[in-house]
């Protein structure tokens, strides 16, 4: 990392409940500390449309469930040095992958969401990105550098991880945080 | 019946057979029966009656001659003229020309001399020569004389010593010295002691044990009796596959006949030996070849292996000392006792005495059952005995040792066949399957075939075998559908080593062998699939063609 320039930092939200982002925000005052060390360049928290060309650290929440997310994560991967799977959805698929247990799960969730539970004018919208047959955890589609399991991972663990990483140590989260 | 009566039966039978000038042996084993052997036997019987040579010519039903690819096979003695693909019309010609006129019908003969000459038939000495349904025929060929010798001249310890001198090792796959196994059990506390003859030949592509049981059941019974005498067991179970109806039937008849003559039962041949044999049927579980699993199965439970120790030699069937022996090993026993351990130890290679039966199949000109001395090379087996690869294609790989054996490349053709060198090469002796594979086969597809087999046969007890093999299968599926990544090579090799080292029993420990050996010798083929997405054999990357749908 360039000593003079702060490392760039991004967070990405794929198929997940945003709980991991909430947990990240729960860092509270520690966020200021982090903010001093990194430059936030992309996140659902800020209004930047295009994922930047060069990002040092990207935290990814959520699993890959549709084509848009798949192409997004591929782009994120090529533009990121250190890609971190944040939370169980990104690490294992978790709740979002529950539809994998059904045959034609992709069709069934669409039907459930837009037809069965719709009061007026039930129809499957065209503008939704096409769902993949299965929901995938990140590492099944792209290489992942670090995993922080947890549903969600606790703020303490996210803080530990980022502090260690920014101090250019290699954080060992696996014994601190568990699935679920 | 008493000991001396065996000799009498032999004499009477020899005299009876001598009265015939010719003997027509019709192979009625599982290989020839589908091709019409039973009808052919009847045809020959009718023909000799019709032509009035019934006094002159004995028509006998026998077991496998070994040349299974050219069945139905008929052998005319004296002279061992092997007639191939005999039809009723040809039968008529054989009877008229050969039996009546004394002129062998040259153009109907099986002409592959090396197939016969390169072999050394000990275990299969009687296969295709005697009528398995007639105990007299076995006795006339020297059968049960070893038993008589043991019961009259040798102490149990001397029998074990003789086996030790022969250097006989278990033919079931691992090659454990037989004498050592016997002395463990003979010294073990606890009674009664048991013997299980393992005839659960679950390997696809292997039929040596079945053939043996169909062709020479009494050799097996005699082997069991001698083993029982040596270790002090009074009860044996023959555990065989339910898929082998003819073998079961033949064995049942043989056991009944032997009981009738008091060769088995209480006070065998008037001596103090008691010995009882019971047939137990397996029911389609490859894992039952594993010794602790076979015990569970004989006890009527799920054939799941258990960790050793305790070893079956101290706590086997119903917790009692038990010898589990492959039938091929048992069939060697009478010969060793007849001719002495020293004689046997000279056959085969220095650290691996004797012979081994192999089923040679696949893309080969003379598929069949052969018996060769240990130490023979794969090249001799494939090209001299097997007659090479059909349609002038080239040999790509040889699979040795069944589904958990290894896939060896043609550069290893000069490898001598014995336990150690096969192990070094990554294969195993297994139960003796050799499958030739030509360039029309895709080795990725072949390796997956074996993994599929082991996935279906895994008992499900231990994690590595139950889950790990499924993962390997998934990776293969992905490779064959064109979704593989180059990293899969490493993952496959890591998982395979893991399964080999951590599985509970032999099935899991050897199941990844086809993967490991293909990775070792045919890595290029994996790379072609993963990088170039090309399958030279044209098996992969298409739906429903060569891809097993689960």
């Amino acid at each position, binding site marked *: 990392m360039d000593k003079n320039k702060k490392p760039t930092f991004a967070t990405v939200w794929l198929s997940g409940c945003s709980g991991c982002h909430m947990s990240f925000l729960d860092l509270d005052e520690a966020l200021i500390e982090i903010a001093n060390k990194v430059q936030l360049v992309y996140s659902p928290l800020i209004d930047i449309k295009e994922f930047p060309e060069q990002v040092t650290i990207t935290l990814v929440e959520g699993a890959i469930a549709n084509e848009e997310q798949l192409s997004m994560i591929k782009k994120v991967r090529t533009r990121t040095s250190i890609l971190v*799977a944040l939370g*169980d959805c990104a*690490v*294992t*698929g*978790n*709740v979002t*992958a*529950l539809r*994998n*247990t*059904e045959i034609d799960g992709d069709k069934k969730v669409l039907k459930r969401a837009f037809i069965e539970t719709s009061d007026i004018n039930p129809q499957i919208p065209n503008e939704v990105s096409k769902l993949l047959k*299965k929901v995938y*955890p990140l*590492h*099944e589609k792209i290489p*992942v550098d670090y*995993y*922080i*399991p947890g*549903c969600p991972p606790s703020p303490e663990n996210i803080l530990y991880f980022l502090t260690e990483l920014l101090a250019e140590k290699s954080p*060992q*989260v*696996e*014994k601190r*945080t*568990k*699935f*679920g | 019946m008493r000991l001396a009566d065996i000799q009498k039966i032999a004499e009477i039978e020899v005299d009876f057979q001598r009265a015939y000038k010719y003997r027509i042996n019709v192979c009625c084993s599982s290989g020839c029966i589908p091709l019409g052997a039973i009808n052919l036997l009847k045809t020959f019987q009718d023909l000799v009656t019709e032509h009035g040579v019934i006094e002159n010519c004995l028509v006998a039903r026998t077991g496998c001659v070994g040349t299974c690819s050219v069945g139905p096979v008929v052998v005319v003695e004296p002279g061992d003229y092997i007639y191939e693909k005999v039809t009723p019309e040809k039968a008529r010609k054989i009877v008229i020309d050969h039996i009546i006129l004394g002129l062998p019908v040259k153009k109907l003969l099986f002409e592959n001399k090396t197939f016969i000459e390169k072999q050394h038939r000990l275990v299969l000495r009687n296969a295709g020569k005697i009528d398995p349904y007639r105990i007299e025929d076995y006795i006339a060929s020297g059968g049960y004389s070893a038993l008589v010798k043991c019961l009259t001249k040798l102490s149990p310890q001397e029998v074990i010593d003789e086996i030790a001198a022969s250097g006989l090792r278990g033919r079931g796959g691992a090659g454990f010295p037989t004498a050592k196994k016997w002395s463990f059990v003979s010294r073990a506390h606890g009674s009664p002691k048991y013997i299980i003859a393992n005839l659960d030949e679950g390997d696809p592509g292997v039929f040596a044990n079945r053939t043996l049981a169909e062709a020479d059941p009494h050799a097996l019974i005699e082997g069991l009796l001698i083993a029982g005498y040596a270790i002090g067991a009074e009860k044996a179970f023959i555990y065989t596959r339910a898929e082998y109806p003819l073998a079961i039937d033949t064995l049942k008849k043989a056991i009944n006949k032997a009981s009738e003559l008091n060769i088995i039962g209480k006070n065998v041949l008037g001596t103090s030996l008691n010995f009882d044999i019971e047939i137990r049927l397996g029911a389609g*579980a490859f894992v039952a070849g594993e010794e602790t699993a076979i015990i569970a199965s004989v006890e009527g439970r*799920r054939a799941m292996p*258990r*960790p050793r*120790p305790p070893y079956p030699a101290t706590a086997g069937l119903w917790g009692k000392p038990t010898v589990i022996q492959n039938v091929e090993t048992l069939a060697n026993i009478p010969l060793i006792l007849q001719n002495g351990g020293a004689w046997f130890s000279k056959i085969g290679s220095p650290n691996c005495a004797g012979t081994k039966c192999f089923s040679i199949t696949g893309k080969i000109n003379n598929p069949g059952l052969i018996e060769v001395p240990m130490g023979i090379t794969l090249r001799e087996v494939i090209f001299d005995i097997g007659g090479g690869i059909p349609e002038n294609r080239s040999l790509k790989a040889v699979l040795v040792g069944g589904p958990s054996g290894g896939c060896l490349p043609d550069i290893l053709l000069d490898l001598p066949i014995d336990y150690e060198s096969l192990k070094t090469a990554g294969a195993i002796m297994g139960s003796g399957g050799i499958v030739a594979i030509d360039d029309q086969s895709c080795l990725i597809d072949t390796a997956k075939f074996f993994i599929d087999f082991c*996935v*279906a*046969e*895994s*008992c*499900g*007890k*231990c*994690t*590595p075998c*139950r*889950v*790990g093999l*499924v*993962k390997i299968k*998934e990776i293969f599926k992905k490779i064959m559908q064109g979704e593989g990544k180059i990293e899969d090579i490493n*993952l496959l090799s*890591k*998982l395979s080593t*893991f399964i080999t*080292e*951590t*599985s*509970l029993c032999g099935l899991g420990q050897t199941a990844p062998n086809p993967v490991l050996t293909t990775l070792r010798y045919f890595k290029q083929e994996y790379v072609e699939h993963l990088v170039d997405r090309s399958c030279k054999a044209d098996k992969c990357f298409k739906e429903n063609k060569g891809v097993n749908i689960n």
Partner: protein
Amino acid sequence: MTNEPINLTIDNIKVTAKQDTTILEVAKQYGINIPTLCELEGLSSYSGCRLCLVEIRGSTKLFAACTTPVTSGMEITTNSDKLKEYRKITLSLLLSERTHICSVCVANGNCELQDLSNELGVDHVPFEREWTNHTLDSGHNFLVIDRNRCILCTRCIRVCQETEGAHTLDLKNRGKDAQITIDFDALWKNSSSCTSCRKCAKVCPTGAIYVDDDFISKTKDKNIANFLLKRRQL
């Protein structure tokens, strides 16, 4: 056979053991932790999960600590890099075998599979997961079996056979299709042999069998088999 104590080393620690004890038992006495899953004190050993494999000097093979008896002079390693790696693979395989989603599991926080994954550093599952969808059998008054969370450790089967003596549970099918069966594949409420003793739920390491109306932490009691065994011997 003599009853003299046996001397051996485990992870370079000199230990003394009685004849006929297993490596695992000796290790436990000396506070050396060997991870286990299918093993449970008070039940027979199964040796199925393969987590407790250890190395013994002089052999290239690995040995299951739960069933291998100690012998004099053994030099045992319980925690080499290879063993650590293999344990991680084993756990990953178990996690990938069926639908294990901790966040929606009753046993979340009280699960041996989850704890071990944490302890041994399994932070993701490098294999493609199977997403099984076995029907949940929740018709019994309070016992529930969810075969999607079963790791086939057979503790429930053993406790049912050996401790309770009902033999309601057993394995059916084989290999990857192996499942826990209740009688003739019955629904639990229809079982004629089940005594509803809850022991299976108490010993289940995951959320596969649990008591519906209880907190899961109250349901689990891993000492039950050993406790009952000792009571019987009094």
